[in-house]
């Protein structure tokens, strides 16, 4: 399915062939020309070889999702050809630089049935003739592509200059390769007529990944210590925060394992700074004991849980969202916690700050979910929202004198007790992982054990009152209400926009959840009463959020649209679902 007002380019090759940098260059240069883009990365869990791709969907209208097929595929390796040939849409073109490429019968059949042109560009030889380095084949092909798209080379060259600002010696040569690609001719390569309207006013927009936005949310929130153990897709939060640490002054440390990561986070937070950690599902499994400790000692704890498919090592570099129930039920014992879910850079940036305010004010663990699809995709956005005011919930310095010994864990109406910090001239206390009294002194008596358990759990009731409802995109009364969390928002809202533009007859809306736990089912139930059909869209295999909603409210949706193959929802899949529903209606 080709989507109107969208063109899709995919660059593919082996890991180590610079696929990601070409993709980034394309994203940035597309923006510079005054168009909108969304960049989607696929890569294997290895460093050299295998197959990797970077797909850029671009349009004259804003977009935040990928199509399942591309219009133009650049191929730099045999393995990428065999993996991605079928991702080319009808009437599309494949440009490859693979010498002696043999096409299988199946491939030839696909190409002829779909009217796909496969064009060999002797890029290695031409790059050599032009005096370039073998790795510059990708820049050469970029020149070929850009000429076909009829886009401005000035913008592309500007982006290349910025990319190689620290290696000025290679700039001239790369420009030379672009120009060599520009003049390449082949009878099968015809210029593309995009027919897009350009918006010069958007050239100042940002290209940002979800992980960069979360990292900047931490910076803005005053996080002063970030601890992590490398694990895809969370690792780029660590590497980005480390890269800017000389400017931010943030203490950014790679720690020996996730148990220590969580423990250091609890320690630094307990001492009184804002600390954060990040991991993926397997690492979070190791942290769960410490999440329970944070809840018991009422120490603020914020962890970014960047999801990828499991179980076990799973599909390490691919996407899904199957750790919601892990987050909601993590750790032994019963205790209050908040689970948030980002869906794009803006929400990642905001929710990171919200997470710290909630963790501080309620003295609880807060888990911020994200997904590989959000973490590592390249979003084009106007700006990040304004920073959120910091709320720490600490006893003011001039109030320390009035503190009583039992205040630290005293039972209160909303379950939140006064918190002050070690080092302060005030009554000391014991942050005790054993059940305890107001000052942290150990108790095994039934009455105080019940009282403090209930005190902690009352935080959850208060949170249910203060946490915002899910946000509705579209009309209150709809034929289909889609309900989702995380990255499906991107594909669903893009699909609804497209459907409306194309004059579809169904009334559609999308209810988006960012505050996952404690669950807020009320708004959903109100909408469900008026909707013909409610569909949960989840990037997991069993509909975890639907389960959670049902558990807390008894509500069961009419349908589940699930995807659990390591890939995100593509906008085309949602459009197809809507069209299918339309057919049933008619």
């Amino acid at each position: 399915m080709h989507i109107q007002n969208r063109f899709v380019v995919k660059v593919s090759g082996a890991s180590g062939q610079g696929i990601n940098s070409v993709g980034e260059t394309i994203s940035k240069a597309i923006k510079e020309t005054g168009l909108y883009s969304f960049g989607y990365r696929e890569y294997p869990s290895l460093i050299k070889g295998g197959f990797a791709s970077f797909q850029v969907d671009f349009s004259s209208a804003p977009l935040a999702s990928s199509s399942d097929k591309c219009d133009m595929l650049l191929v730099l390796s045999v393995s990428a050809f065999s993996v991605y040939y079928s991702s080319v849409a009808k009437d599309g073109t494949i440009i490859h630089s693979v010498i002696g490429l043999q096409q299988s019968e199946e491939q030839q059949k696909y190409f002829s049935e779909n009217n796909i042109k496969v064009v060999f560009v002797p890029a290695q030889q031409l790059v050599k003739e032009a005096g370039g380095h073998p790795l510059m084949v990708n820049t050469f092909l970029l020149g070929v592509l850009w000429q076909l798209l009829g886009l401005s080379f000035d913008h592309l060259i500007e982006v290349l200059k910025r990319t190689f600002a620290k290696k000025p010696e290679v700039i001239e040569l790369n420009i030379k390769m672009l120009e060599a690609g520009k003049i390449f001719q082949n009878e099968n390569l015809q210029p593309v007529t995009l027919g897009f309207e350009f918006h010069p006013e958007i050239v100042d927009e940002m290209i940002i990944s979800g992980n960069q936005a979360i990292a900047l949310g931490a910076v803005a929130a005053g996080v002063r210590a970030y601890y992590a153990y490398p694990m895809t897709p969370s690792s780029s939060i660590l590497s980005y925060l480390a890269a800017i640490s000389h400017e931010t002054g943030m203490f950014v440390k790679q720690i020996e394992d996730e148990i220590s990561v969580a423990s250091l986070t609890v320690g630094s937070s307990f001492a009184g700074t804002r600390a954060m950690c990040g991991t993926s599902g397997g690492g979070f499994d190791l942290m769960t004991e410490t999440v329970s400790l944070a809840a018991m000692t009422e120490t603020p704890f914020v962890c970014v849980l960047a999801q990828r498919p499991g179980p076990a090592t799973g599909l390490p570099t691919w996407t899904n969202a199957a750790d919601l129930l892990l987050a909601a039920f993590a750790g032994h014992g019963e205790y209050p916690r908040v689970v948030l879910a980002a869906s794009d850079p803006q929400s990642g940036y905001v929710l990171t700050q919200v997470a710290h305010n909630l963790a501080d004010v309620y003295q609880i663990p807060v888990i911020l979910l994200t997904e590989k699809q959000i973490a590592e995709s390249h979003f084009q956005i106007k700006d990040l929202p304004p920073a959120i005011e910091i709320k720490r919930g600490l006893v003011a310095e001039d109030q320390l004198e009035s503190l009583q010994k039992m205040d630290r864990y005293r039972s209160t109406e909303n379950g939140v007790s006064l918190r002050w910090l070690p080092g302060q001239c005030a009554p000391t206390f014991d942050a005790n992982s054993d059940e305890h009294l107001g000052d942290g002194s150990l108790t095994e008596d039934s009455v105080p054990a019940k009282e403090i358990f209930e005190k902690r759990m009352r935080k959850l009731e208060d949170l249910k009152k203060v946490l915002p409802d899910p946000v509705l995109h579209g009309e209150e009364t709809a034929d289909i209400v889609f309900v989702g969390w995380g990255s499906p928002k991107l594909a669903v809202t893009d699909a609804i926009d497209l459907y409306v533009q194309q004059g579809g007859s169904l009334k559609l809306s999308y209810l988006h959840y960012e505050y996952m736990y404690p669950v807020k089912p009320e708004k959903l139930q109100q909408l469900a009463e008026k909707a013909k059909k409610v569909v949960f869209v989840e990037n997991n295999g069993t509909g975890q959020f639907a389960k959670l909603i049902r558990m807390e409210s008894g509500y069961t949706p009419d349908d589940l649209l699930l995807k659990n193959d390591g890939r995100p929802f593509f906008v085309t899949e949602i459009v197809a679902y809507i069209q299918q529903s339309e057919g049933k209606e008619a």
Partner: protein
Amino acid sequence: MSCNSCSTKTVGLAEYASPNALTWCPGCGNFGIQVALKQALVAQGVTPHQAMLCFDVGCNGNGSDKIDGYRFHGLHGRILPVAAGIACANKKLTVVAEAGDGATFGEGVNHFVHAVRGNFDITFLCHNNENYGLTKGQASATTREDVAMNSNPDGVTSTPIHPQRLALSLGATFSARIFSGDIAGMNRVFQAAIAHKGFAFVEILQNCPTYNKHTPHEWYQQRVYNINETDHDTSNRAAAVAAAEDINEKVATGILYQDPNSVPFMMRDAVRKDLGAELIDEVKTYDITPYTSRMR
């Protein structure tokens, strides 16, 4: 944010007293260790507001609410990274972590390895009574070979960990061993450990009257000697390893090794070492435009 007024205040032992009754077995080494810790803190001029006492789970951890000071009583085996996190966030605190041999060399051995490597500015009192006391006398990683324990009725078959050999091989900047019956010795060693810049490992040979029948109080008393009263050079790591080796006949106690040039973790950090402020004092809204402008 830290308490400044305390630094000029004089501190006495009474300030570390707790109204809660101690629950250790009669004759437990923990009584003496707690007394010596209080003495050392007082002697070093550390008030309970400045003291950050971190406890692992075990018999000693049960004492977390039986001494004053700010305290954190964590999970089994995990206290070292918690203490490290506290020490990094507020260098003004005097951070003392305590854990048993079960936690330190069993479930938490990786934390011990990396805490030594990191040289976090912590005093670590490792209560080595060669068994898991609080769970009723199972073997630990320091229980001697062939000794029969709860759940190991035929005797331990694995080679025991030698805590000093391990710590010194990892590059510990301070490694000491002392006996729980030697309160004056503990006071002296604890004070040196608290004053040490970096990770100060103190192994306490602790008697366990209930479960360790193999090396009781008297056994140690007959074997320990103060190595700091000999010509032992505490700045010589190889000499320390050699001196620490014997744990059967003549058992060296005191400061075995101390690196006089030790640089603690935060002072090795390229970003933080020259910044005077503490992480706890820096929480505020930071402008992100320097970073977003590069994404445009």
